[in-house]
Structures are given as structure tokens and as C-alpha cells.
């Protein structure tokens, strides 16, 4: 891998940008690897990278049915945060935020992590009390959090609705200053380039059709490019986790839904933080190109169709018009849907699948992007050691049997 640097940028700029070369290879798959990762999104590529970097396992294949980062990694709203209520979740997601903080240097690829703050609004006095509770919980979890009153929110984001007749008046909010946004594609490409440089084979346009099982142990996959055997397997396929589970013969407590997002036409700077209104479920940030990146709640209908529908669009965009009436006439540039894997407690599943030799990283629901470094780190740890890291242990699949749920949906009252 040739290193990206300011010097290199200058040299290539002066010589017609002809010397960059490919960022990663497109190898034909070998018959066998030490480890196979199914899914070439952020989580899968990060898993491969940490297998090589942390555990010295470089004879690894990442198998992707489409193109890299073409699923939810390319379909999210790029928010990175760890403002969680329970200690288990805070430990997991803040591990991810800390990895993100050093990721551009680590990967030698600019993932454009901009720590512009993640602000959650409160619209009434009771909501302010809950905001204080959230703020205190976050601080007890070792996270950065500040409780803001109405004037402080107004200084931070004057574009919000401070009119006297607002349906949801702003009473204040909680901000996590270390939260922010990243460049979604760069996260996938950065991990891919760094993993490839460590010798990992990234195989695109190769669909897993079945698992190869011998004596109860998963020993490989049948793909559209033939059989590939692996010493240990990991699956990080988000919304399609249940489809793989059916092939592998294990059960998952997952329901797949579409999650929609929107980008507006480019505007002059109006908002330099990420704002979420729990009342409307709408959240918004402004990208470096000026477009408003708008997200909201889950669809109402279980779905594998990667597209949107009108009722949820009305809710999300109505929420935006309420939050920021000045932006009500902004035009949308595009909108899309991704398929997210939602668990009963809105917390992820990291751990053994129930089939020997096959480990899972799924169930992130609506919040997988911010967790990419941690998801990859802990799946790699499991695949290399066959045992949990302390931080990933509470997220084992067995929690649905023991009842030790990490119920973040109940803790926050909003979908994560």
C-alpha cells in the first residue's frame, strides 16, 4: 500500500493524478482460508482488518454479494455517538467512538470524523428532568455530556424553532460534544484498503448460497464463485442476517425493517451540530457539501425492500418543518431506504451463532454505522480467541434466554 500524505497529494496533483493506483486488489478466491468474513460492509471489512492487525490472522477472505459498503454502510445518516443510558451500551459504543477518533491515522485514510456534537432536545419541563437523568447516566458511564437550557441551545442552533406558537417548544437539551458525523463510504474504503494491504482477500460480487457443515461444525461457504473453506467464520450482514440464519440453521430474534433517510439540496451553513427531536423522531445534520442529512424513525412494516414509503416520509419531513420552520421549503435531492436488523431490546448481537465455528455481528438496528470499529474489533476477537471480550459479553445471543436484555429502546424512548 502506498501511503497517502500531503506530499503525495502535491506530487500527484502536479503529475496529472496518474500514479495513485488501485486502493485494493480484486483477487480470485482461494479454495481455503484461515478465516472467512461474510459481508463486505463496514463491520465485515473492520472485522478483517482487526483480525490481521490485532491477531495476526492475515489469510482471510471477505465475501460480499454486491459491492463494498453498498448496503447500510452506504445508506445511513453518518452519525457517530455514544450517548447511551446503560453502562454495557455506553462501554460498547464509546469504545467505537474512541476508535473512530484515531481511525483516519490508523487507516491512513481520511474518514472525516467531525466531532460537532450530538444534541438531543427536550420539549417540556418533564422532558428536561428526563434529559437531566440521561445526562447524569452518561456521566456516570464515563461519557461527556452537558445539560443545556433554552438559551444555550439557541446560541448553538438558532435555526431551531423558538417561536411562541411552536408545537414542540425547545426547553433545553443534552449534548454529547464528542459525537458528530463521519464520511460513510470512506469508512468502508479505508478499512478495505488497510485490510488489503495486510494481505486480506476482498471478494466482491460473490454471493453466499449456503454454509458447508461437517460434524456439526461450520467449515466454509458455498458461493456463486464455488466452495470456499474457512477455519472460522464470521457473519456481518445486517438486514439479511435472518436469511443467513435460515441457511445456517440457527435462530435469531431479528425483524428486518426499512429505515429511510433524505438529503436536501446544498444550502449555506445553517447548522453545525447534529440535532435530534425525540418528539418528532426527526434528526438532522448538515454535510460538508451543504446538504441537510435527515433521518427519522423506523418504517411501520417489516421489509426487505430497499426503498421508502409515503407515511414515514410525511412524519420525518413534517418533523423537520416543525423543528426548523425556516427550512420547510427546502427541496430534497434524494432519498433512500436501507434494511436494518432490529432486535427486541434494540441492542446488537455479538457472539457465537449456536453453530460451531460461526460467529455473529448483527442486530445493530438503526445504529450500525457508529459501531463499525467496535463491531469489527469484537467479532475479530471472538473469531481469533473463540471467547468474548469483556465489553461484548453482555451482547451474546443467550441474553434472550437468560432475560439479561440491554433494553436501550425502553431506556431512551426513541429507536436507536
Amino acid at each position, binding site marked *: 500500500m502506498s501511503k497517502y500524505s500531503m506530499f503525495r497529494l502535491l506530487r500527484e496533483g502536479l503529475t496529472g493524478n496518474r500514479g495513485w493506483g488501485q486502493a485494493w486488489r480484486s483477487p480470485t478466491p482461494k479454495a481455503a482460508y484461515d478465516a472467512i468474513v461474510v459481508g463486505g460492509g463496514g463491520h465485515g471489512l473492520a472485522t478483517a482488518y482487526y483480525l490481521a492487525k490485532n491477531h495476526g490472522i492475515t489469510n482471510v477472505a471477505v465475501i460480499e454479494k454486491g459491492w463494498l459498503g453498498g448496503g447500510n454502510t452506504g445508506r445511513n445518516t453518518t452519525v457517530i455517538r455514544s450517548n447511551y443510558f446503560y453502562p454495557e451500551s455506553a462501554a460498547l459504543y464509546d469504545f467505537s467512538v474512541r476508535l473512530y477518533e484515531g481511525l483516519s491515522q490508523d487507516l491512513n485514510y481520511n474518514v472525516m470524523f467531525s466531532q460537532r456534537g450530538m444534541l438531543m432536545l427536550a420539549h417540556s419541563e418533564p422532558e428536561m428532568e428526563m434529559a437531566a437523568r440521561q445526562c447524569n447516566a452518561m456521566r456516570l458511564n464515563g461519557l461527556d455530556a452537558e445539560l443545556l437550557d433554552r438559551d444555550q441551545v439557541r446560541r448553538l442552533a438558532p435555526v431551531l424553532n423558538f417561536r411562541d406558537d411552536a408545537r414542540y417548544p425547545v426547553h433545553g437539551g443534552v449534548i454529547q460534544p464528542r459525537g458528530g458525523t463521519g464520511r460513510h463510504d470512506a469508512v468502508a474504503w479505508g478499512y478495505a484498503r488497510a485490510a488489503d494491504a495486510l494481505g486480506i482477500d476482498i471478494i466482491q460480487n460473490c454471493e453466499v448460497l449456503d454454509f458447508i457443515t461437517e460434524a456439526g461444525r461450520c467449515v466454509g461457504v458455498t458461493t456463486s464463485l464455488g466452495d470456499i473453506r474457512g477455519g472460522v467464520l464470521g457473519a456481518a450482514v445486517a438486514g439479511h442476517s435472518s436469511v443467513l440464519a435460515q441457511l445456517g440453521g440457527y435462530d435469531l430474534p431479528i425483524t428486518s425493517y426499512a429505515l429511510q433517510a433524505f438529503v436536501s439540496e446544498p444550502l449555506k451553513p445553517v447548522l453545525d451540530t447534529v440535532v435530534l427531536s425525540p418528539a418528532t423522531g426527526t434528526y438532522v445534520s448538515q454535510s460538508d457539501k451543504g446538504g441537510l442529512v435527515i433521518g427519522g424513525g423506523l418504517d411501520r*412494516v417489516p421489509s426487505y425492500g430497499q426503498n421508502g414509503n409515503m407515511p414515514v416520509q410525511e412524519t420525518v419531513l413534517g418533523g423537520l418543518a416543525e423543528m426548523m420552520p425556516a427550512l420547510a421549503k427546502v427541496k430534497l435531492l434524494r432519498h433512500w431506504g436501507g434494511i436494518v436488523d432490529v432486535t427486541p431490546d434494540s441492542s446488537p448481537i455479538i457472539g457465537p451463532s449456536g453453530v460451531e465455528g460461526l460467529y455473529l455481528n448483527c442486530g445493530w438496528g438503526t445504529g450500525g454505522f457508529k459501531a463499525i470499529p467496535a463491531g469489527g474489533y469484537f467479532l475479530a476477537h471472538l473469531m481469533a480467541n473463540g471467547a468474548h471480550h469483556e465489553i461484548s459479553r453482555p451482547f451474546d445471543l443467550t441474553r434472550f434466554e437468560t432475560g439479561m436484555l440491554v433494553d436501550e429502546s425502553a431506556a431512551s424512548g426513541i429507536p436507536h
Partner: protein
Amino acid sequence: MQVFTCPFCGPRNETEFHFVAEAGKVRPDTTQPISDAEWATYLHTQRNEKGPVREVWMHTTCAELFVMQRDSVTMAVLGTQALRKDGS
């Protein structure tokens, strides 16, 4: 905007309907001992199929439950039937 057909009220706007559960799940016999694993399977495990699915929905306007067949990829509705045996 999609139209779903309530077996009792006829074609209505999709926003009048609420997804309840996958069809065909049977509650374990609670007069017999039930293992944690069986109970967890009943509570949490989902088939979550890609393609044709069979689900229980509620038409919130008339508050009746019914079965809907649809395609989870194309979102096409393939049919709806009352849960009541006599179809009334």
C-alpha cells in the same frame, strides 16, 4: 400510499393498519413445564423471511385482527383473510 384490504371493512389506507406478529406462532402449553429456551423461542425468535410472508395485522379502525399474505421485498399485498373460522 399503499392500500391494504381489511376482510371486514374493505380497502383502506395503509396508515390505518398495524403489524402485530408473524402468523403461525403457537404459545407453549403453560400447564406443562416450559424450558427457558422454549419460552425464549416463543417470545423472541422470528422467521423474518425474505419474499412471501404470512402475518397477523390489526385494522386499528375496526380493531379486528386478520391474516395478511404479502411479499416482504416488493411490498405487494397477496391476500387478506379473517382470523375467525367462519369468516364473518
